[in-house]
């Protein structure tokens, strides 16, 4: 269950529109390493996660990612407000515009609609936690790449905030992986899958 809060996690107030920049930032909305995928990945992995600390981490980070999805949507929205046809053309925004006008649609920068094929829920805690560590790094790289094309401080500031969150989440997932392996057989972490192999003797 969730309760909406009528505020952003971090304020966004962009004075100058920039459709070219919106077109690359949208990738963190619906792209392969974006916030939608992050949230869906963590909130889905929760169900097969055996340890309470890990259920909590996935719930809390998955929830925060929804707030980040909203921030990215707000950035794209504000960057494309009140555009003229000339500005749309000059920003190379025509191809997005004909499909979605200036609506915010989950797609990657290279034009692929959101697909769950870019994420995994493996049902094996070690595997899923490595997926999550990788996801945070992929999102961090994407923010680093976005920052290369960003010279507006109104945009840079929230993007830097979001980038920093990926690093903090990576840290928490790392601790989560340690919590997980501490509960497994130290001679062979892969001896059994604690989500599936419910044998009481081995899962102690």
């Amino acid at each position, binding site marked *: 269950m969730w309760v909406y809060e*009528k*505020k952003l*996690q971090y304020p966004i*107030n962009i004075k100058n529109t920039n459709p070219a920049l919106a077109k690359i930032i949208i990738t963190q909305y619906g792209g392969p390493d974006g916030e939608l995928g992050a949230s869906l990945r963590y909130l889905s992995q929760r169900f097969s996660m055996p340890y309470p600390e890990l259920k909590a*981490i996935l719930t*809390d980070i998955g929830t925060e990612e929804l707030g980040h999805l909203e921030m990215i949507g707000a950035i794209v*929205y*504000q960057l494309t407000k009140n555009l003229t046809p000339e500005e749309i053309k000059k920003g190379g925004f025509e191809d997005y515009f004909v499909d979605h006008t200036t609506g915010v649609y989950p797609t990657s920068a290279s034009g692929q609609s959101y697909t769950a094929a870019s994420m995994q829920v493996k049902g094996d805690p070690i595997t899923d936690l490595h997926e999550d560590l990788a996801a945070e790094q992929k999102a961090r790289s994407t923010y680093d790449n976005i920052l290369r094309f960003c010279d507006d401080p109104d945009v840079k500031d929230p993007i830097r905030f979001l980038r920093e969150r990926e690093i903090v989440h990576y840290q928490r997932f790392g*601790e989560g992986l340690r*919590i997980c392996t501490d509960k497994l057989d130290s001679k062979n972490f892969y001896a059994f899958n604690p989500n599936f192999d419910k044998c009481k003797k081995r899962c102690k």
Partner: protein
Amino acid sequence: MTDQEVMLRRIAALDFAIVELNLFMDTHPYDEEVNDKLSSYKRKSKMLREEYEKEYGPLTPRNKEKNQWGWISDPWPWNNDKGEE
């Protein structure tokens, strides 16, 4: 910046500290120092939220029965002006 924006930023700052410490507590559940800090931020946020909601309307649908129109009305979080006409 409007008074409303200033206040919302103060709430966002406190709430961010709450999110961050709450997440830390997931993997460090016995850290009492962090837990005390978390309680203090929660108290401050609660006070400020009540003040804000009295002035500008509800922050969550749970508090909207006192001010239905305040929940509906602009600006919504993605609006960077008074709201769209």
